[in-house]
């Protein structure tokens, strides 16, 4: 594209002197642009990669969601308009899996956040063997999720030889009773069973983030408050909690991102039975077992839309993290 400066350069020689400042400006602009690209260059591979691998599939999912497409009935393929979406919203299983997802996520994140806070406060103080206790506490987070789900299902919850009922038998035996209660945990309260195993796994994660937050508190402010006669509760309420806020938010955000997408626990523990199918599991079933590609895509789009609503709030929360940094 010929620029203004090039045009003037090609003109009669008498106008050269007029063009000089303009040429300089253009050179400066070009240099600026080159600098900008040099700055951007290291960012581009990651950005391009992520757009291709994560964003393009979503676009494809949206397209497929408007098509009748069942891999088991290839002849019926065709434009579906909103049929798949109507089917998704008319499907009671889909509606209940939305409720399950919300219940599961909120319960797991809230309870593990509270437990994590309690444990972090316990661990924040010096006592003998603190390092060992911290190691013991983070172990659940390090066990492969499938392994942990299998462990809970077979070694702990199992009605006939699981550890929970085994412990009941043992305790009842201490009192000479041969008739201990042997509840079938997974059948009686399947969702709670999934939740407990996930809380066990995510509490250490919350604890680690909050512990890091506690240990980054300014010790002198707390000492000063104690000198002024503030009670332990006052210090917690007015010093610790405000300081912990961004750590609590971060822990809740990351926890939500991972728990909402949980597949392993639901798949392994209950196979989505007894009202424990969450959205990822339901989509997996529609796609992998029913082979209804159109409807699975529509479900996916609905999930993305819901996630976007949540994400908007979540991102606003996290933006306080970055804002704090900018103003510092």
């Amino acid at each position, binding site marked *: 594209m010929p620029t203004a400066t090039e045009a003037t350069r090609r003109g009669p020689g008498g106008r050269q002197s007029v063009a000089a400042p303009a040429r300089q400006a253009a050179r400066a602009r070009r240099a600026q642009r080159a600098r900008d690209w040099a*700055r*951007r*260059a290291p*960012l581009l*591979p*990651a*950005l391009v*990669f*992520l757009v291709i*691998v994560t964003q393009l*599939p*979503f676009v*494809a*999912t949206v397209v*497929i969601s408007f098509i009748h497409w069942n891999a088991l009935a290839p002849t019926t393929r065709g434009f579906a308009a909103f049929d798949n979406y109507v089917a998704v919203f008319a499907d009671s299983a889909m509606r209940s899996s939305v409720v399950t997802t919300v219940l599961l996520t909120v319960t797991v994140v809230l309870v593990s956040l509270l437990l994590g806070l309690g*444990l972090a406060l*316990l*661990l924040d*103080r010096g*006592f003998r*063997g603190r390092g060992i*206790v*911290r190691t*013991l*506490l*983070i*172990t*659940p987070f*390090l*066990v*492969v999720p*499938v*392994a942990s789900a*299998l*462990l809970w299902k*077979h*070694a*702990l919850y199992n009605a006939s*030889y699981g550890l929970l009922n085994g412990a009941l038998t043992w305790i009842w035996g201490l009192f000479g009773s041969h008739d201990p209660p042997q509840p079938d945990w997974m059948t009686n309260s399947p969702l709670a069973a999934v939740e407990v195993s996930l809380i*066990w796994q995510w509490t*250490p994660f919350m604890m680690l*983030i909050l*512990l*890091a937050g506690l240990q980054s508190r300014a010790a002198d402010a707390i000492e000063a408050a104690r000198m002024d006669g503030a009670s332990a509760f006052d210090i917690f309420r007015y010093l610790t909690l405000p300081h912990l806020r961004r750590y609590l938010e*971060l822990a809740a955000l*990351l926890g939500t*991102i991972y728990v*909402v*997408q949980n597949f*392993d626990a639901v798949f392994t523990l209950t196979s989505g039975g007894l009202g424990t199918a969450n*959205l*990822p599991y339901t*989509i*997996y079933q529609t*796609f*992998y077992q029913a082979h209804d590609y159109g409807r699975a895509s529509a479900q996916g789009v609905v*999930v*993305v839309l819901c*996630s976007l609503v949540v994400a908007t709030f979540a*991102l606003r929360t996290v933006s306080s993290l970055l804002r704090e940094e900018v103003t510092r």
Partner: protein
Amino acid sequence: MNSAPLIRRRTGSLLGLAAWLCGIAFFLPVAWMVLTSFHSETDAATNPPSIVAGLSLHGYREFFGAGTGVSPWPPLINSLTASVVSTLLVLALAVPAAYALSIKPVRKWSDVMFFFLSTKMLPLVAGLLPVYLVAQNSGMLDSIWLLVILYTSMNLPIAVWMMRSFLSEVPGEIMEAASIDGAGLHTTLTQIVAPIAMPGIAATALISFIFSWNELLFARVLTGVVAGTAPVFLTGFVTSQGLFLAKVCAAATVISLPVLIAGFAAQDKLVQGLSLGAVK
């Protein structure tokens, strides 16, 4: 007034005891898993539990294919390949990106940061079908390299966030001083940025490795006989052969071991990494 320190010391040791009890409670299921893995099948499935039963390597022998001839090595090697290669790719992409977002930030860098994080909020499962169809038509189905690509994209956003906060630890004044002293880009990177960023890179690598090693959904849908990973192997282990508790516990222990070792060895890095480097 004189009794206050005494009371404080007493509640202090009580709270220490409470912490110990909590630690043991959270560790108990894992301890039970390991103990059961060393029991014979009959001792493993008893009620009440047999804590003092004799130890046996039966479960581990079974897991390594003595009884069934199904070797766990291919899935373990697949998992190792997918986790290590994707972690290296994540680092190769995230470190330069974080550099462009912190040390010499591009304009609107915080918007870019939000874009990265927002990709993490779109559920993976919603993009699974197109990936499956593309893989099917391009012959990439049941290939470990497809998982490498997907795991890289799965961990990249968090890695960029973590690396950015680690790199913004590098004080601007030192960078300026170095450039005034005539240090080139290479010298600046190796002498100033790298020493500060190294712990961050280690933390990022650790988290990326853990999440890749643990992943099940993609591995289950997109792999089969050849490229199945350890978690997929573990799920198949139960359904195809009925339930043998000691063997399942041995399998779960072995497959968790790499992550457990890495996590124990680098606890502090793990904390920094999980808080996206927000901890100083």
